[in-house]
């Protein structure tokens, strides 16, 4: 293995009192206390967090904001944690997952070369049965997710349930959610705003001040039949908490995330989300240490290109292929032009984060870029009449179709005002 090439660098020297050391696969990696672990990994040029399940290709951090699965690693004895949402602290031990054999020498990497035409898993070694049995055993040993957590680090004994009964639950503290929660707080409403992101990330993720009542937890389900929403605290923070929430009204502001752009070799380590990268740079006081190529759609691709100091900004239709091995090293465009780079930043038009809205029974509509939550003009959600509604449901911001932070903040304010009016009318 050649020495990894740093992909990011600090914009200014790290003060001694903020410097900590992580351990990645036993090797020391310098970090800033409290920054996302992914920032430290990219600065050290460490990309190999996992291998892909079928073709055994190397994979690294991609979305950089807690949406995808390719930076899942074992941290402090707990499996399947995302390096992009875990926060750095001294001696934090991180190990890659889904790896087989010694570090850097995983022989299963050859599968990508051997099966150049693809793997038909419906038929490969299904017969004879004896060969199938052997194949299953090999595949199970080689691949898969993390093993069980270390008993010594298990937070199970201290885990606790917390019951909340706010008047309004606001899900998401991005541009729309924080503005809505602030508006309701100012009117004296008992409002609980929940977001899985840490406070320092939220401060740079969107404009505007954060609400006073802000809970860091990932809302993982809506149960209309039980009148219940549930959220879980970050597994690296003690105590581990399960939040059960019974609100009278819910304002969903879950925002939007990046879909994948189907391009050749769009999975190589070093292919990242442009919006995620921009957020990570701001959050961690870093800048790119290698040329960046932005491949994007819509008006915002050029803006992101400028913000990232990109060597080039191109549309997906111009791209022939992304190149690289253990890390990306270039992009070939139609006409044969090849641009050398160390990071490829994808900027698709974001897709609404629709899953919780769907669970709550809100009708979805495909807007060409994602599945948007439907509502009346005031933001009151349109719901499936067959689904019980023990609350009133409202939607704001990018969840109604990507609109960007400025428009989302204004939308959060307007929907919160309509919600407030309905609460007062019901009194």
């Amino acid at each position, binding site marked *: 293995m050649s020495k990894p090439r740093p992909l990011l660098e600090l914009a200014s020297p790290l003060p001694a009192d903020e410097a900590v050391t992580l351990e990645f696969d036993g090797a020391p990696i310098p970090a800033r206390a409290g920054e996302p672990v992914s920032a430290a990994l990219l600065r050290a040029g460490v990309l190999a967090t996992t291998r892909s*399940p*079928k*073709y055994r*290709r190397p*994979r690294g951090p*991609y*979305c950089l904001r807690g*949406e*995808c*699965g*390719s930076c899942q690693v074992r941290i402090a004895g*707990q499996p*399947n*944690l995302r390096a992009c949402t875990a926060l750095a602290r001294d001696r934090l031990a991180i190990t890659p997952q889904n790896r087989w054999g010694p570090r850097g020498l995983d022989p299963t990497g050859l599968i*990508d*070369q051997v099966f*150049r035409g*693809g793997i038909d898993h*419906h038929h490969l070694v299904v017969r004879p049965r004896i060969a199938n049995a052997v194949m299953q055993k090999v595949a199970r040993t080689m691949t898969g*997710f993390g093993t069980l957590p270390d008993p010594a680090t298990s*937070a*199970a004994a201290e*885990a606790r*349930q917390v*019951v909340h009964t706010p008047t309004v639950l606001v899900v998401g503290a991005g541009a729309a959610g924080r503005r809505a929660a602030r508006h309701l707080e100012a009117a004296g409403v008992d409002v609980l705003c929940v977001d899985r992101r840490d406070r320092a990330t939220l401060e740079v993720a969107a404009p505007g001040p954060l609400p006073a009542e802000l809970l860091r937890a*990932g*809302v*993982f*389900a*809506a*149960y209309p039949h039980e*009148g*219940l929403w549930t959220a*879980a605290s970050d*597994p690296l923070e003690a105590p*581990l*908490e*399960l939040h*059960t929430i*019974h609100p009278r009204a819910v304002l969903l502001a879950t925002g939007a995330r990046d*879909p*994948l*752009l*189907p*391009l*050749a*070799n*769009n*999975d*190589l380590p070093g292919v990242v989300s442009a919006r995620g990268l921009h957020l990570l740079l701001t959050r961690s006081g870093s800048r790119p240490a290698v040329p960046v190529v932005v491949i994007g759609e819509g008006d915002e691709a050029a803006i992101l290109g400028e913000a990232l100091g990109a060597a080039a900004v191109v549309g997906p239709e111009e791209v022939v292929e992304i190149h690289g091995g253990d890390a990306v090293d270039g992009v070939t465009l139609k006409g044969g032009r090849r641009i050398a780079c160390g990071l490829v930043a994808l900027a698709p038009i974001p*897709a609404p*984060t*629709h*899953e919780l809205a*769907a*669970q709550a029974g809100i009708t979805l509509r*495909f807007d*060409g*870029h994602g*599945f948007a939550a439907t509502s009346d003009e005031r933001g009151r959600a349109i719901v499936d009449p067959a689904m019980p509604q023990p609350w009133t449901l409202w939607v704001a911001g990018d969840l109604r179709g990507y609109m960007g932070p400025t428009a989302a903040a204004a939308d959060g304010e307007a929907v919160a005002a309509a919600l407030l009016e309905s609460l007062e009318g019901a009194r």
Partner: protein
Amino acid sequence: MTRRVFVCRCEDVTLDEIDHAIARELTTIEEIKRYTGLGTGPCQGRECMVPLARLLCERGLAEPATVQPFTARPPTEPVTFAALASAQPPYTGAADDDKDPEAAR
């Protein structure tokens, strides 16, 4: 690296494999999910659902006005068994069915 166009990175589903499914007349999001495993990995469709919906619409296999995603079941965010196991009655299941959920408030 072999040249591959991924639609779903979690489960290594390539554009070729989607084409293969379509050639077998599996042409809806649900059918393609079941045949290829698309959307069943750690991201649960966050990355792949939209590229697939766009592809089906572009090829005239789905209508933008009616295309819908596959079911989004809980959990939509990672949650540990330890956190789930901390639930107290009446949140713990069948044995508590006769109890009033209001009692938890």
